[in-house]
């Protein structure tokens, strides 16, 4: 039932809005609204009950194991939320003078310094509001760098075929042509293809390391050399930073610009799909191009650096300074973990992934890159199972929901057929992983004994399989009264 269907004309709340209406007779009639908007007329209790019940129809980290590959669904500590929501932080206006926000700005400055250290980069700006916007900022800086050097011929960005879809989409948004290069059979970028692809048109290479195939690019130093010798820059998509945090710094791998998904590695909430936050780190040569604003410390006072001081900056990416509340949560998280906790993130994320990979292999699942170590994630391919039984990766994913587990990422990366990308994250216990393996074994048995049942999953959820084709063909995007 929709919130609108709980509504009755004339029902309203009395405590949440001003007690009366006020005068607006100085506004000309032709600028006024004539028909009231379709907002529900419901009581406070109706609202609370309706949205509480809706929440209960979601799987979440707080309620289920959520091994969604490439998304780093780790526990979001409650202290981070509680302390970021102290009323002074919430009530601070973005345009309030800097001297009324020294406490807040201290957190932002320290977060910049911490991220600089963790990534090995020369500068950090906290401005981008999501991973995709971090990518946009990074690729815009690559473009600005070449143009500042009078080089307007670099029109291509190289992207491996295993990359996130945001990488090629971002390159196009920045006015570049995308050159895709293949992956070799061990899961590394095909080095010869890279060598053939680089040249005077190469603006840069976008790379995730460890890659979305769940393996570390062993030839990263050589790749860095090849791209740099051709005059290009190296972009690090930080989606998988959780796997190497405290072990390898992107700066040491030769990257010129990186983004860090705080909603993954630094455990800020995914919130049903945002808000994210993606600070970017840059090597020294890209410092002048960083987006504004970012925080500096001068004579014991924190202040914003503006575009007037950075004439080569790529500019503003948001109306204010990015997702401050998300940044506060990330700051609290790193302070809770501390120096010693940084290394442990990668260690236990990697331990969990390799353990789960070993256990799933033992019960009969095929691993896509069996000779490689898992990073913090790995890929199972169901190609043979599908060929033999007709049961697909998506069928298995839906059956997992029935057993109380969120599904792994399916059909990504697209170059592995019938794949499941599984990322357990460091906050899960061995007992949870063992229970998941048991559920996967049960499904394997079900595939053998009653494949049609698995094909028609889910069976125990509030709804059965939903019709995506009907949704796209007979668009119903808004409720209409009487519909």
């Amino acid at each position, binding site marked *: 039932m929709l*919130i*609108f269907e709980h509504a009755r004309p004339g029902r*309203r709340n009395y405590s*949440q*809005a001003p007690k009366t209406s*006020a*005068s607006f007779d100085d*506004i000309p009639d032709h600028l006024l*609204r*004539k028909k009231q*908007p379709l907002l*529900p007329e419901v009581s406070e209790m109706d609202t609370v009950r309706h*949205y509480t019940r809706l929440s209960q129809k979601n*799987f979440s*980290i707080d309620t289920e194991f959520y091994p969604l590959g490439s998304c780093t*669904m780790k*526990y979001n500590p409650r202290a981070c*939320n509680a302390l970021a929501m*102290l009323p*002074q932080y919430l009530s601070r*206006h*973005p345009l*309030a*003078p800097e001297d009324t926000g020294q*406490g807040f700005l201290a957190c932002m400055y320290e977060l910049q*310094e911490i991220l600089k*250290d963790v990534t090995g980069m020369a500068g950090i700006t906290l401005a981008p*509001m999501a991973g*995709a916007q971090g990518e946009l900022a990074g690729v815009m800086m690559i473009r600005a760098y070449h143009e500042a050097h009078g080089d307007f011929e670099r029109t291509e960005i190289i992207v491996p075929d295993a990359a996130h*879809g945001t990488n090629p*989409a971002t390159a*196009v948004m920045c006015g570049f042509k995308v050159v895709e290069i293949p992956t070799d059979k061990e899961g590394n970028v095909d080095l010869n293809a890279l060598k053939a692809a680089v040249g005077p048109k190469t603006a840069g290479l976008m790379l995730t390391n460890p890659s979305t195939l769940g393996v*570390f690019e062993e030839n990263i130093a050589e790749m860095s050399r090849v791209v740099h010798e051709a005059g290009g820059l190296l972009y690090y998509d930080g989606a998988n930073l959780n796997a190497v945090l405290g*072990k390898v710094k992107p700066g*040491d791998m030769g990257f010129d610009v990186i983004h860090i998904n705080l909603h993954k590695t630094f455990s800020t909430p995914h919130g049903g*799909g*945002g*808000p994210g936050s993606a600070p970017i780190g840059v090597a020294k040569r890209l410092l002048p191009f960083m987006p504004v604003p970012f925080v500096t410390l001068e004579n014991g006072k924190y202040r914003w650096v503006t*575009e007037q001081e950075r004439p080569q900056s790529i500019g503003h*990416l948001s*109306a204010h*300074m990015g997702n401050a509340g998300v940044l506060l949560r990330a700051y*609290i998280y790193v*302070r809770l973990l*501390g*120096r010693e906790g940084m290394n442990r993130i990668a*260690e236990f994320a*990697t*331990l969990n992934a390799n*353990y789960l990979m070993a256990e799933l292999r*033992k019960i009969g699942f095929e691993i896509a890159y069996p000779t490689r170590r898992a990073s913090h994630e790995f890929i199972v391919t169901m190609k043979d199972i599908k060929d033999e039984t007709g049961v697909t990766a998506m069928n298995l994913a839906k059956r997992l929901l029935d057993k109380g587990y*969120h*599904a792994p990422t399916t059909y990504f990366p697209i170059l592995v057929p019938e794949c499941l990308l599984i990322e357990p994250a460091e906050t899960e*216990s061995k007992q949870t992983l063992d229970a998941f393996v048991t559920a996967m074994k049960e499904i394997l048995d079900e595939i053998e004994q009653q494949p049609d049942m698995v094909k028609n999953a*889910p069976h125990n959820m509030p*709804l059965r399989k*939903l019709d995506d084709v009907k949704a796209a063909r007979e*668009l119903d*995007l808004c*409720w209409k009264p009487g519909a």
Partner: protein
Amino acid sequence: MPFIPHTEEDIAEMLASIGADSIEALFDEIPADLKGGTLKEVPPGLSEMEITRLMMERAGQDGFYQNYIGAGAYEHHIPAAVWQITTRGEFYSSYTPYQAEASQGTLQLLYEYQTMMASLTGMDVSNASMYDGATALAEAALMAVRSHKSSRRILIPETVHPVYRKVARAIVSNQKIEIVEVPFDQTSGQVRLESLDAFATDDVAALVIPQPNFFGVLEQVDALTDWAHSKNALAIGVVNPTALALLKPPGEWGETGADIAVGEGQPLGIPLSSGGPYFGFMACKNSLIRQIPGRIIGRTNDLDGKPGFVLTLQAREQHIRRSKATSNICTNQGLMVTAATIYMSLLGPDGLRRVATHSHANTSSLIKKLTAIPGVEQVFSSPFFHEAAIKLPSSAANALAKLKQNGILGGFNLQAHYPELENTLLVCATETKTEADIDNYVSQFRQALS
């Protein structure tokens, strides 16, 4: 170990299963010369009690102020239920609803949000949100160029939020799209039709129309919309969602309505929070639906014919279309939209209208009282919504500094973005201010000028 549950026994068993001697051995594919690098700037970890003390100290250092700054972010009362429900773990710690059957809560909420926003803006459809108002405008400009096909020029009046203009320029200029700024009338504070007439038919992809504009002033939206359409250009409304409870929605502007409506969603239950996270909203006519970026939720049926909700029109998006997507945008601002949807439900049409009328009346009262002070003048003659520009007889910066000493953030100094508007403040008094607050402000203001 904070947030890591492994016991020594677990670790030993797991390593045995993998066949590795140590956890460090799991990193043996990383070339040795890349490894290491000690962390110098990361301090040792704190307990929850210690970080609580630190964050409370810093919050206390920042304190509380009576806030009269608007300029794109507005203080409104947020009902207690909004964030209590929004931060339930099932909303807070879930991800993008890729597995529809396990995400019906988020999906249905987003469908309800789309319904509310489409109605509030008077448009046919809404997406599931953008990052913020500024990026929503940039995406609307890209969308207009995609659908116009022959022109790559966007007209943006100088009465549009100055940072929105900068963001739009930064984002669209990579795609060889030209942003042309249109001057405003210094008396009315509005865009004048005459300043648009220099632009020829078919060489404008879209005209951006703010309502209210950055000065709080109400624009002649009907005439501007009709002008855009007469030039075969799209009309993009940039609107304040609180104001929409009172003002004519973009879908009803002019003869046929604006084509795209965008804006900053923050006033709908999102705390000011130093500028984010907020959310941008975007709604459009049916004819533009395949050009809209971002997530869209559709209603459909399950195998038994029961109604349910899914992400739809995904063929526009980066994870399917890659380099041919409508945008690189990956997520929306799900949690912020959760809060806004609960906010709109709690207020309802009448409550939101009360918030709008009180914000208008309070600012009107403030302006009336301030302009009674000798030498203080209202800058623009046109009607305003809930903020307005006043000119001071002396330094605006000094006045703001003195007000601040008395716990008042007195407004936004317009000279920062409009050098011609010397000693001019943009002030805003929402429904959160009482008559006594306003009188206190006026009295402090009087002293600050003397």
